[in-house]
């Protein structure tokens, strides 16, 4: 017989009580695991979206007076005192310390042109590097194909409407002929009104060889602070204005952060309840076993032996509770995450979370059994047996 046998014997004998404690801990751990994995999934999802939704850094020329914009406003004129970006600036971006985080660099040249197909209009021409552009704008759906040969052009849906052109039609831009290779499905943004051509073609058309209006950069930033990347880019491009496009995500990130805080608070409460359950059950268990513990002490068990018996029971129960809680939490979060997050998020079956769950449960279980164990260990054998 070992001390552990005494513990296991007790657990077996007091099954219903122990099941109660295990459930208490498991519910606590399940709540923590579910909340944790849902918020983690939401954070991942948010980050994926930030990455997916293209540029999160925009580099434009440093200008005193500039009304050239791509964000929401049309290009009106060209300011000639602007020190324009050039194609030589692109490789510099790759030299920053955080270059590993840079996923895509999409240089662009913008200009107003006269476009003539079946219809005619002034339009915004954007010269892009198509492979980079397509990688960045994953939401693009093209009716037809992206330009792959010289003399091909991609039209935004509204532009195609105004110019009354379809894939395969011909267009004249500032007197030069282009073939429409594809039309973008409506995106609901200003991209719908734009004409996209290969960068070099735009440079030739607009008479600005080697020049760029802006560079969009998408940086993968799971952990890195985007501000640091912006700072480093400003360092290598002193004549450019580098800014991060984070506004759009701030609100959602705030929501996720709030949910995270809320989860922490709920977890703390639920775990505290679990701890109370363990504490009261262990206390009553110790009380019921007063005589038995008195016998143990009388036949020479040390106080530490008694404490070990009680704590081993607590450990077994809380590890079982932790494992069950983790399982329940993962299943619950896998099922509910899409509704809670209101997005198609996927929950990660992360082994570290399992370890964390079991560790947490063991901590709560053991922590709240310390006092009962001490009570048991400090029982006076003569008093406990009352055989005097």
């Amino acid at each position: 017989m070992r001390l552990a046998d005494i513990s296991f014997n007790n657990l077996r004998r007091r099954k219903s009580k122990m099941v109660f404690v295990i459930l208490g801990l498991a519910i606590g751990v399940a709540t923590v695991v579910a909340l944790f994995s849902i918020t983690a999934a939401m954070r991942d999802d948010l980050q994926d979206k930030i990455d997916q939704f293209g540029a999160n850094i925009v580099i434009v020329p440093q200008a005193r007076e500039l009304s050239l914009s791509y964000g929401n406003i049309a290009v009106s004129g060209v300011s000639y005192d602007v020190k324009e970006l050039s194609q030589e600036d692109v490789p510099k971006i790759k030299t920053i310390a955080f270059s590993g985080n840079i996923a895509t660099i999409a240089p662009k040249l913008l200009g107003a042109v006269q476009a003539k197909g079946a219809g005619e209009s002034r339009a915004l021409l954007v010269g892009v590097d198509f492979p980079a552009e397509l990688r960045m704008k994953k939401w693009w759906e093209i009716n037809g194909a992206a330009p792959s040969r010289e003399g091909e052009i991609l039209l935004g849906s509204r532009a195609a409407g105004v110019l009354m052109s379809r894939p395969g039609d011909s267009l004249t831009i500032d007197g030069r002929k282009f073939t429409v290779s594809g039309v973008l499905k409506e995106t609901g943004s200003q991209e719908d009104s734009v004409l996209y051509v290969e960068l070099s073609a735009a440079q030739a058309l607009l008479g600005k060889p080697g020049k760029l209006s802006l560079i969009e950069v998408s940086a993968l930033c799971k952990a890195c602070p985007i501000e640091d990347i912006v700072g480093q880019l400003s360092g290598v491009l002193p004549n450019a204005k580098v800014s991060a496009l984070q506004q759009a995500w701030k609100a959602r990130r705030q929501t996720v952060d709030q949910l995270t805080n809320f989860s922490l608070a709920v977890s703390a409460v639920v775990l505290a309840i679990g701890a109370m359950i363990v504490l009261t059950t262990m206390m009553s268990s110790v009380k019921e076993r007063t005589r038995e513990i008195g016998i143990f002490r009388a036949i020479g068990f040390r106080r530490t032996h008694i404490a070990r018996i009680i704590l081993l029971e607590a450990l077994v129960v809380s590890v079982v509770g932790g494992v069950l809680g983790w399982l329940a939490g993962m299943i619950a979060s896998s099922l509910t995450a899409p509704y809670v997050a209101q997005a198609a998020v996927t929950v990660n079956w992360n082994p570290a979370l399992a370890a964390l769950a079991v560790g947490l449960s063991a901590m709560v279980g053991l922590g709240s059994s310390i006092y009962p164990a001490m009570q048991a260990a400090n029982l006076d054998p003569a008093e406990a047996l009352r055989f005097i």
Partner: protein
Amino acid sequence: MALIDIRGVSKTYNSNGCVVQALKGIDLSIDEGELVAMMGPSGSGKSTLLSILGAMNPPTTGTVLVDGIDLYGLSVEKRADFRHEYIGFVFQQLQLIPYLTAVENVLLPLAISKRPHREQEAMAFRALGRVGLVDKARRLPNQLSGGEQERVAVARAIVNEPPLILADEPTGNLDTQTGEEVMRLFQSLNEDGLTIVLATHNPENTRYVGRTIRIRDGRIAS
């Protein structure tokens, strides 16, 4: 030198403002190999003296030496070790653990020893054999008669081979015949060299012992 040496021991209980002087200056020495009975009416202090002797109950005054060890000069944990090593208790109310079988009850004191399982079992069965209960080793206490339970308690007391057995009213709950059997068991254990001190209020039991100490009102009467 005597195995047990009790000097000037008194014990005052003070529970809820009710002060009881259970022992009033006890001097007593018991030699190794003695079989001693403490006789006295209920409330005279027999159990109190046994628990003090058994390193479980610090006296209010006085010293208790067992094998030259000052019991109440030891730390609490060391006193537990002392109990483990020196003393086998047979308690007044048996105090078998109801959900453990006879042999498991006997194994209990060995749970804190580092002995391997086989050796523990061998020791437990030797002890059960000594009290003649090997065939009922796997029974739970409530499947045993009062006398058999008493013998399991004795087996648990001797399993660790302590030099000193303390028994409180070992025949208290038994009929005359079973009580006599138990007393003969103590006699034969004593013949094997164990020192035994038992408390009883039954004068019949004095027939089996080497020395009778009469206690009255917390004092040794004779």
